[in-house]
């Protein structure tokens, strides 16, 4: 292989050529401001935006009026959580409570931390070794002053899918029984285009969408905000011209929105047509090739409840960053401390209870629309060869093969 293989589709995805094609006219000729009501440039821009709204709504089973455009899922997560919380406070004159798992994306975790500084209480739900939350723990954490429950559809590191419909049902039942305004927010970034999503059936009130995780451009996303009773009120993070029903001011980036819309349309096709199963087959092919040729491999998180394209595996006794350097012809990522600026291993793996030494050896592969069997077969050969080489260099592998229990060793850490 002359090029670098791209197996890091959880980190970002390439723009589908069809998305780029759809966007270009809105940069070159159709450059009007969608808010310009008085001329054709504006009307054309507005039509394109409204069309994109429909495409995005269709992807998740929503109505187009329920889609708010943002700069990306980080903003959507911030808007959902802080927007709900700040409205709550403004309306009731007090702070309240939030529930979220410890394995959420930083955009959710840090939004919650910011609210904690204002006095909000947060229940951080633990996960089991499969990466799943306990529904009983959720039920018993719900309080009369719980403003929002935020649970991601699928985790970006381990691909594990939470029981979203059950969570939605629990939150809805609690809200109706206790007459609270508790809302269910779902960061669906990693799930879009990979599994079917229906916000009505799952009783989701708010949902975050990202363009660049589904073969669209970076810098654009959306927030689904359910219409209907009980009415959802969000305090905007960004003030200005009152765009997006006052929820998100700022001139709409029409070309970006057109890209997001096209990406959503293609994502829906992937799921509806079964094309996503081809990606699952590639992921399975990769895993089978590795486990047939290597011992001491450990899958991180539930295999059953996992995105079809995710493979997060620990190669015991081989450190993650060294692995990635060794397989530099494959773009992927690691949960090892050495790959993070803070030298802390992945908090998601730690939350699963994965031992620190295995966390250091983890690699995440995210297969995508543009990968091929040829690439996977070549990758298997490379990875197997390099793991064997690195294990030959590993004092830990040597000790384990000699029958030594690593836990019994008195390590002289400095």
């Amino acid at each position, binding site marked *: 292989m002359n090029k670098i293989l791209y197996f890091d589709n959880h980190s970002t995805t390439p723009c589908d050529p069809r998305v780029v094609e759809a966007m270009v006219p809105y940069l070159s000729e159709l450059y009007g401001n969608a808010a310009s009501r008085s001329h054709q440039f504006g009307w054309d821009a507005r039509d394109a935006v409204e069309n994109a709204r429909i495409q995005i709504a269709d992807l998740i089973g929503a109505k187009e009026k329920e889609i708010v455009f943002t700069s990306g899922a980080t903003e959507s997560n911030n808007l959902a959580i802080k927007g709900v919380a700040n409205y709550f406070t403004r309306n009731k004159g007090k702070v309240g409570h939030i529930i979220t798992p410890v394995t959420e994306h930083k955009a959710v975790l840090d939004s919650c931390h910011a609210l904690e500084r204002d006095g909000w209480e947060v229940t951080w739900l633990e996960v089991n070794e499969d990466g799943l939350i306990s529904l009983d723990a959720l039920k018993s954490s719900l309080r009369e002053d719980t403003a929002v429950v935020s649970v991601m559809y699928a985790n970006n590191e381990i691909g594990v899918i939470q029981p979203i419909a059950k969570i939605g049902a629990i939150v809805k039942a609690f809200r109706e029984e206790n007459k609270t305004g508790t809302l269910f927010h779902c960061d669906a970034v990693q799930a879009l285009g990979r599994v079917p999503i229906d916000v009505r059936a799952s009783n989701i009130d708010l949902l975050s969408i990202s363009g660049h995780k589904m073969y669209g451009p970076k810098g654009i996303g959306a927030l689904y905000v359910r219409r209907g009773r009980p009415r959802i009120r969000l305090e905007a993070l960004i003030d200005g011209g009152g765009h997006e029903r006052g929820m998100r001011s700022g001139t709409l980036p029409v070309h970006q929105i057109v890209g997001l819309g096209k990406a959503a349309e293609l994502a829906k096709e992937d799921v509806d047509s079964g094309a996503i199963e081809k990606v699952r087959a590639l992921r399975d092919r990769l895993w089978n090739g590795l486990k047939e040729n290597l011992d001491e491999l450990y899958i991180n998180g539930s295999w059953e409840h996992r995105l079809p394209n995710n493979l997060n595996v620990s190669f015991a*006794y*081989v*450190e*993650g*960053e*060294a692995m990635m*350097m*060794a397989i530099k012809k494959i773009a992927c990522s690691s949960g*090892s*401390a*050495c*790959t993070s*600026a803070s*030298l802390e*291993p992945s908090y998601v793996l730690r939350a699963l209870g994965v*031992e*620190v*030494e295995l966390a*250091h050896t983890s690699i995440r592969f995210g297969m995508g629309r543009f990968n091929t069997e040829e690439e996977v077969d070549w990758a298997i050969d490379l990875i197997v060869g390099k793991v064997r080489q690195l294990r*030959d*260099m*590993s*004092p*830990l*592998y*040597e000790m384990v093969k*000699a029958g030594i229990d*690593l836990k019994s060793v008195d*390590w*002289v*850490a*400095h």
Partner: protein
Amino acid sequence: MAYSDKLVKHFENPQNVGTISSDPNNKEVGTGLVGAPACGDVMKLQLKITDEGIIEDAKFKTFGCGSAIASSSLVTEMVKGRSINEAMSISNREIAKELDLPPVKIHCSVLAEDAIKAAIKDYQKKNQVEQ
């Protein structure tokens, strides 16, 4: 991580990988095992030392990142042919400088320096017992 060419070379073509002796009682060989799996860095350095106190051979095995592997590979080159005293005076700064280690990876060179000292200490302990 953007590493220096020298570092990449040591990583892709590590020098002196392996084991000199798996017999813990072998008096000619000092073994240093430093670091911890929990930290993501473990180095095993073996030094074969002559009666005159010269390091005749060195071999390493490392569990760790590119910087850790390169640091230990470099160390085996640095100590071969040197006396015990010279090896003991090798500082992590020399290793870090030679490989142009990024600041966040300096600790890998510290561990490599520790490995030398641990291996020599082990050798000396084995040989003092005889005296």
